[in-house]
């Protein structure tokens, strides 16, 4: 299946793969310690410091690598949480129908009517922002979107004759959800997962930029922008590196998601 990959998807895979590998092996490949001040303030790039140093003299490449680790880890964990919660609840609503569906859907509507950034700001102002709380808050807020998609997809599938056949056989809810519906709902969900992951990266970066996300001295991309934004006034480009990283990661994950969607929604053959 890895033959015939279109060029765009190959580029996406390479860039995304590089970011993830860098995040996983951050401790091995980072040239300096994460919070170690090794040079002057805002040094230009040099042989020792490829991307220069930041506002208190830490190596920017090291900060970027560790920042990527934090950002990608939080975004991944929150995406997984939002998908498991959203998809399972969405499937249950679609299969059960009736008042269970009504109750859950209206509750989700209620949460979706409040902008998620505002809601996150309110919650984070009352509890302490740790990596764990950030993941839980972001994951649960985003699961409302996944719930909507999963429910819509599952409603279409649950009226198929094979689901009716399973009901007539006397199958329980768990079999219908995980064996009949899930395999057929997977391709739109996987493609959506790519997009939601990117939203998560943007979300955590926004929170950190506003100062209520990942707390110093831990590095993350949004935080690096915040710490170095003053440098732009002096012609220092340090704040732009994380911006470029976020943009390239977003584009490359999208390229992969597009490819998966194209490949698996083909009606010919039916299994991807």
């Amino acid at each position, binding site marked *: 299946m890895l033959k015939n990959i279109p060029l765009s998807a190959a580029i996406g895979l390479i860039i995304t793969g590089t970011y993830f590998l860098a995040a996983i092996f951050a401790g091995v490949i980072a040239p300096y310690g994460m919070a170690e001040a090794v040079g002057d303030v805002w040094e230009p790039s040099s042989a020792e410091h490829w991307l220069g140093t930041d506002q208190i003299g830490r190596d920017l490449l090291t900060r970027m690598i560790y920042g990527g680790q934090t950002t990608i880890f939080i975004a991944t964990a929150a995406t997984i949480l939002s998908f498991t919660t959203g998809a399972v609840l969405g499937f249950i609503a679609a299969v059960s129908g009736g008042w269970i569906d009504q109750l859950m859907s209206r509750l989700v509507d209620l949460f979706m009517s409040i902008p998620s950034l505002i809601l996150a700001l309110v919650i984070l102002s009352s509890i302490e922002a740790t990596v764990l709380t950030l993941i839980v808050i972001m994951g649960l807020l985003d699961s409302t979107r996944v719930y909507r998609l999963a429910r819509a997809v599952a409603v279409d599938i649950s009226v198929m004759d094979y689901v009716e056949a399973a009901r007539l056989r*006397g199958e329980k809810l768990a079999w219908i959800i995980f064996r009949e519906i899930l395999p*057929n709902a997977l391709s739109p969900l996987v493609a959506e997962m790519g997009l939601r992951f990117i939203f998560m990266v943007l979300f955590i970066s926004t929170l950190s930029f506003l100062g209520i996300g990942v707390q110093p001295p831990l590095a993350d991309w949004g935080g690096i922008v915040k710490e170095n934004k003053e440098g732009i006034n002096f012609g220092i480009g340090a704040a732009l590196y994380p911006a470029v990283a976020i943009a390239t990661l977003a584009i490359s994950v999208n390229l992969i998601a597009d490819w998966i969607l194209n490949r698996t929604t083909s009606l010919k053959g039916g299994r991807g």
Partner: protein
Amino acid sequence: MTTPLLQVRGLKIGATVYPPGEKPHDIEIVHGVDFDLEAGKVLGLIGESGAGKSTIGLATMSYGRGGVELTGGTVKVNGRDVISASARDIRRLRGAEVTYVSQSAAASFNPAKRIMEQVIEAAVFQGKFSKSDAEQRARDLFAKLGLPDPNNIGNRYPHQVSGGQLQRCMTALALCPEPDLVVFDEPTTALDVTTQIDVLKAIKDAIRDTGVAALYITHDLAVVAQVSDHIMVLRMGEMVEYGTTDQIINAPKEEYTQALVSVRSITHEEKQPTEPVLRVENITARYKGTNFDVLHNVNVDLSPGQTLAVVGESGSGKSTLARVITGLLPPRDGTITFAGRTLTPDQPSRSLEDLRELQMIYQMADTAMNPRQTVGTIIGRPLEFYFGLKGAEKQNRIQELLDEIELGSGFQDRYPAELSGGQKQRVCIARALAAKPKLIICDEVTSALDPLVADGILKLLLNLQKIEDVAYLFITHDLATVRAIADSIAVMYQGRVQRYGTKSEVLTPPFDDYTDLLLSSVPEMKLGWLEDVIANRKMESAGN
């Protein structure tokens, strides 16, 4: 010699296929077909699905559907080749010289526009008529096609007319620009038999009166025999036989054509009713949120190991009866007794034993099987679920069932997408049999299949009935099927059982008016049948 209106020589059509698990590759689906069509004549193209008949029909408009390419040969309309024509010339051809009537009028009309606007669109766009002339012509055509209130029906929206009427509107649409050739692609296949006959008559008269030539594509030889002058039999992209309608029907030369003509030659000895396994008493039912009953006081019995055929047109309530028996739609009134036990009205409260002994087979085998499960999983699940079979025991039983439905080994690991239509329906039968049921509800199980394949399925079902002693509740609109397999028959009309009894009782005159209409509407492979029937009917069909 004059050039014929349509001349097809060595037509080859190819397509790219994407089989699961393999590389995409090109195949040829029509392998060099030749034929001529004179002005004002009708040629019937007949064959099973995949024979290439629709593809050939569309090729006369220089069109290939979904990645289909015209790879060789010539198609000349009025002496000009349309395959090599420029896009500009093709645009002038379509909707002006050649027009098309598709199978599903409901899916082909734009639901947001009035019928008239759509009927005259091509004629006005092609500059053949002014808007007012085109509208006048459309009204004349509506009248000619026997549509009610021809002066005003064009102002309606597509959902405001019946299926049979919409199909006639589509014929008016095709005839409106005064084309030289109309391609009819299964125009009556989606209609009830009683409606089909009127549409067929309207189309036949319209073709005769306007002097247009037509290609009539269908899989039903009896239908095409009524309208066409010549018939071409196709199989897997090749011509099997070509001749006058009389010759093809009465003296087919090729073995394949003979098989098509003699299809439904199954005979079944009627059994006498005994103590019933299923007793439906005084069932009245309606759908949630509606205020009328779709079933009124329905009473039928079914004896063990026998077949009860429930016949009627769409909307007669026959599928609703199946939903009530399976418990998907709890009735408002009445009781269902199954194997001596009274069934609870709603399915979730039924015992595992009740669920197991009452199985169902669906019309569309495609949607009745999970596309992501293998045949082994599909058949194996009931074994595991009802009998707790595991491992080798389960595998052996799956193989036994596959043998019973006449599929060999090697099918276990296939996915539904890798099976043909007939094979899919066989797997669904095996899934039902796996539960060792006393009763199987068969909901239009053969109506989506080609005649020869359907025949195979019916033979299989009869055979299995002898071996397993299972009863069938057979829902169908096809009376030929009923004659072939039923022991008793219930004729349903507007939610009521109109006539009920053993097969010989129901099919012996005197008939009530509806049963007469239904029985007489089944196309027979006989020239002039259509005119005889229309002349002798007691009752108008509901489609009017």
